[in-house]
């Protein structure tokens, strides 16, 4: 059953990060930008989980929490506080109010998911949902080599997604004793920092799992990669066939 998650934060950026953190799970996210809106949304939507900031205009998170806990219909909704304030007294006071967990900013979306999983199960989206939302298929297999094909646009969310999928794929490969991978960036339209970080992360993951990896890029991309300190030393093949011969 889809879990309704209400994120209450005056920062649109934080709400977006929370939303992205849950995107791989069977969750519906609703948003509110202060405690007053949060209470109204909680009453209307009856969420299964509330992620709540403290410092907000109009009504802060502490007041919203107090009002939630005094409402018989809302008091049992699990609340995770997500706030920049980590003072001991502050934490103790809030924990006494009956929250499920307390998370201090800065944070990563993956950490938030880990905390949520400690208090409730999260179901991954079904294959059909995933196909609908993410039509990109990253991995193919050619003989005993797995090819990771990067999409045309590599942004930070893509990097996070591919890194997660790569980790799972490498585990599968290890179990199946497949030890070769080609990272094909030939279709990527722009050599940006997200792409560089993804290449480095992919190489590190492969190295840790003793998987041999070769990078495929077109000549223009090869030149661009030399301009980044992190990728300047990587040997690049210009086609998958060429990479297969050196693996």
């Amino acid at each position, binding site marked *: 059953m889809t879990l309704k998650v209400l994120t209450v934060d*005056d*920062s*649109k*950026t*934080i709400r*977006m*990060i929370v939303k*992205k953190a849950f995107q791989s799970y069977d969750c519906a996210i609703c948003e509110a930008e202060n405690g007053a809106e949060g209470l109204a949304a909680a009453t209307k939507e009856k969420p299964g989980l509330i992620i709540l900031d403290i*410092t*907000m*205009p109009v009504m802060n998170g502490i007041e919203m929490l107090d009002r939630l806990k005094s409402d018989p219909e809302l008091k049992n909704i699990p609340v995770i506080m997500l*706030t*920049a*304030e*980590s*003072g*001991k*007294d*502050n934490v103790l006071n809030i924990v006494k109010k009956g929250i499920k967990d307390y998370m201090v*900013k*800065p*944070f*990563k979306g993956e950490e938030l998911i880990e905390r949520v999983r400690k208090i409730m199960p999260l179901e991954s989206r079904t294959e059909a949902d995933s196909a609908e939302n993410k039509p990109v298929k990253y991995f193919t297999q050619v003989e005993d080599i797995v090819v990771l094909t990067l999409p045309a*646009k590599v*942004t*930070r*969310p893509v990097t*996070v997604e591919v890194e997660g999928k790569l980790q799972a794929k490498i585990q599968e490969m290890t179990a199946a004793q497949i030890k070769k991978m080609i990272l094909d960036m030939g279709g990527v339209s*722009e050599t*940006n920092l*997200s792409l560089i*970080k993804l290449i480095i992360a992919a190489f590190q993951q492969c190295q840790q799992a003793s998987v041999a990896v070769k990078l495929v890029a077109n000549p223009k991309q090869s030149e661009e990669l030399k301009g980044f300190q992190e990728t300047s030393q990587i040997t690049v093949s210009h086609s998958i066939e060429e990479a297969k011969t050196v693996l």
Partner: protein
Amino acid sequence: MSDIQALDLKGFVTHSVQSVFHTMLSMEIVLEDPPDKAGISTNGHIVGTVGFAGVVMGTINLFVSRTFGREMAAAMLGMTVEDIGSDEEVNDVIGEVCNMVGGDMKSRLCDAGLTCSLSIPSVTYGNGFKIESKGYARYEQLGFRNRQHSALLELYVKSAN
């Protein structure tokens, strides 16, 4: 209760800024001494401000160039700089970075017995202006660098008494 003068405010802020940039923006940022003030004000700058008030009072100002502000917004939102359409996103990200740095400072002050509350962050844009707060017991100025970009953080603290 601790004495304001005895607190390692510089250490607190340095750790906090580096942690926020690393975790939220995936950017490594190092101390730069002396700060590159000229680099920050090229093409105008953005100042994020957060205040705290209670037993102690203070302000944190974070100065970055508009270019760096856009790069920070892109990094935190997982977009490219070209995707950042308006100043609204930049404001939100600069404000949130200040909120996190200010929240950490507030927590450390509270843990030292110097109870205070944190304000909502505000963001100011402009060219060639200077912000100076008077009458503070402690003033710290720290420069940071990420690749070609610089940031300047100013911290003012005084006792409410």
